[in-house]
């Protein structure tokens, strides 16, 4: 019987090797790094329509970079659905109060869902209770359907209108062909042409009448000339001329009187000038008198009988002081 010696020691070595292999494996897998990495919790309010394919463990991207994972999705009928995500602290700077999240799928229309957090520019987030809103990315199929609906809504009315316009055009053409309406009559009926010819004939008659009126006017002018030169109206015209002569004679007399009066005008002006020539001097004298009166009052105020101190009034300065010279 083979008996192993130092069995306990060998078993201990084996256990130690197993522990060392385990620790090495853990370190190699990076689990410890994950455990010690500082993270923050972000609540993402999910849309009313559903999670859009989001599941626990789904990634969270900020600026296209993996920045966290969804740890929990809370579905409670009493409140709105939300997901709790752990976010790397280095991504916190880009998530602000005005940031929003979009739930996308990995390959556009298929694949696992993930959250793309858009960069915010507003106030800093309060990371003690960080909440942002999430929307579901619109499916490409929905976009195409919506586009087709829009096009259908706009195109079909146009086609209907075009049909009605063509019908109306055809009706109009038929009406014209039948010689109905203004244009049809113009094309098929010669009445209008006849009416135009009749109008031209009437216009010619009218012009002949105007020529007769001009002839009569000439005769009237000739009569007026005759009246002025003599004939029946001779007395009245001559009376008019006589009155005009009288008026002119009166006017001549008036202007002669005016001329006589104008001869006195220089003398009058001279008198006025002489009267006003002394006005400046008079004003000066008045001003000086007023000033002297003021000085007299000053002197009176200085009299001891009237409560003054008897001092002589100040002598006015003859020359203006230097302070009055102003640049």
């Amino acid at each position, binding site marked *: 019987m083979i008996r192993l010696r130092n069995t306990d020691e060998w078993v201990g070595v084996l256990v130690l090797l197993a522990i060392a292999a385990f620790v090495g494996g853990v370190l190699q897998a990076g689990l410890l790094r994950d455990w010690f990495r500082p993270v923050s919790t972000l609540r993402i309010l999910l849309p009313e329509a559903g999670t859009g394919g989001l599941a626990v463990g789904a990634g969270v991207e900020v600026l296209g970079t993996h920045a966290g994972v969804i740890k929990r999705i809370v579905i409670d009928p009493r409140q709105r659905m939300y997901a709790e995500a752990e976010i790397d602290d280095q991504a916190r700077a880009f998530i602000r109060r005005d940031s929003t999240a979009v739930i996308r799928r990995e390959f556009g229309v298929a694949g696992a869902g993930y959250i793309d957090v858009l960069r915010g520019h507003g106030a800093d987030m309060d990371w003690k209770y960080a909440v942002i809103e999430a929307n579901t990315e619109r499916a490409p199929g929905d976009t195409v359907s919506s586009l087709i609906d829009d096009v259908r809504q706009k195109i079909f009315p146009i086609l209907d209108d075009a049909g009605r316009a063509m019908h109306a055009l055809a009706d109009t053409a038929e009406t014209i062909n039948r010689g109905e309406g203004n244009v049809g009559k113009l094309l098929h009926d010669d009445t209008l042409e006849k009416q135009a010819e009749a109008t031209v004939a009437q216009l010619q008659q009218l012009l002949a009448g105007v020529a007769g009126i001009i002839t009569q006017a000439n005769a009237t002018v000739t009569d007026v000339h005759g009246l002025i030169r003599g004939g029946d109206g001779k007395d009245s015209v001559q009376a008019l001329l006589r009155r005009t002569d009288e008026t002119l004679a009166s006017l001549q007399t008036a202007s002669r009187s005016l001329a006589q009066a104008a001869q006195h005008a220089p003398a009058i002006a001279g008198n006025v000038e002489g009267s006003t020539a002394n006005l400046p001097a008079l004003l000066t*004298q008045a001003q000086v008198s007023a000033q002297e009166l003021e000085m007299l009052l000053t002197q009176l105020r200085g009299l001891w009988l009237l409560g003054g101190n*008897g001092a*002589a009034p100040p002598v006015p300065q003859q*020359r203006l*002081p230097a302070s009055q010279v102003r640049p």
Partner: protein
Amino acid sequence: MRLLALIMVAALAGCSAPPPPPVAAPVDQMMLNEARAGGLAFALDRPAEAVTHYRAALARARLRDDLPSITDAGTNLAVAELRANQPEQALADARATRGELARRGAADVPVLDLVEATALYRTGQTAAADQMASLVQRAGDPQAAARASFLRGLIADAHGDAAGLAAARQALDPQVDSEQAADATELESRQQLRLRNFAAARTYAEQAASLRRDLPDYRGLARDLALAAQAAQGQGDTQAASDLYLRAGRSAAVQGNNADARIWLQHAQSGDPAVAEQARQILAALAP
């Protein structure tokens, strides 16, 4: 009885008239009247009328060949012409009076030289004005010297001469009287403006304007308002600058200082639309 007599004598002595004043030398009454009327018109801020009266007084003084009266009337005439915005005429009259003084061997009159320096400055001959003002500074009339220092400060500022401006400011003592206080404050403002301390420059300019309003010196007031506007513009406060320029231009327009009024009113048009419209109206009403 004796006591009563003593009291009556004392009362009569108290009633006695003061000794009669010494008899004044005979003068030309017309000349005196014209000179007094000129002074009155000048005091009532009617410089054009003052010019007329002072010119008549000068004519009477020349008629009398009275040198002291010619000096007084000639100086007053030039000062009134400066006030009436006729600097060219003021320069000609001041030079004529100074020439007469020189021909007759009389001493220079600092105020007359100051008038000539100011007229030179206002006609744009700043180098000659500065030279003349430096003569006035050394002439021994403290009031004329102070105003000459202020004038030299203005000229230095116009030439960008910071040292000259500082020297002029140092020559003025704001404690002496309100005139010097206003002049010193204006030069202080110009110094601050040159150093680009716009807030301080504006404060000093507004203080100077207030002092000039109390003097009154309305020409200086308008200039200080324009200075404050310049400082406000430096601060970037275009609304305030526009308003201050409008106020400066309006005051200058009323004084008949059309040249400065035009410049300031044109500056006023670059701000508030209401202010710009008002400035346009005043500009349109200005005589060509």
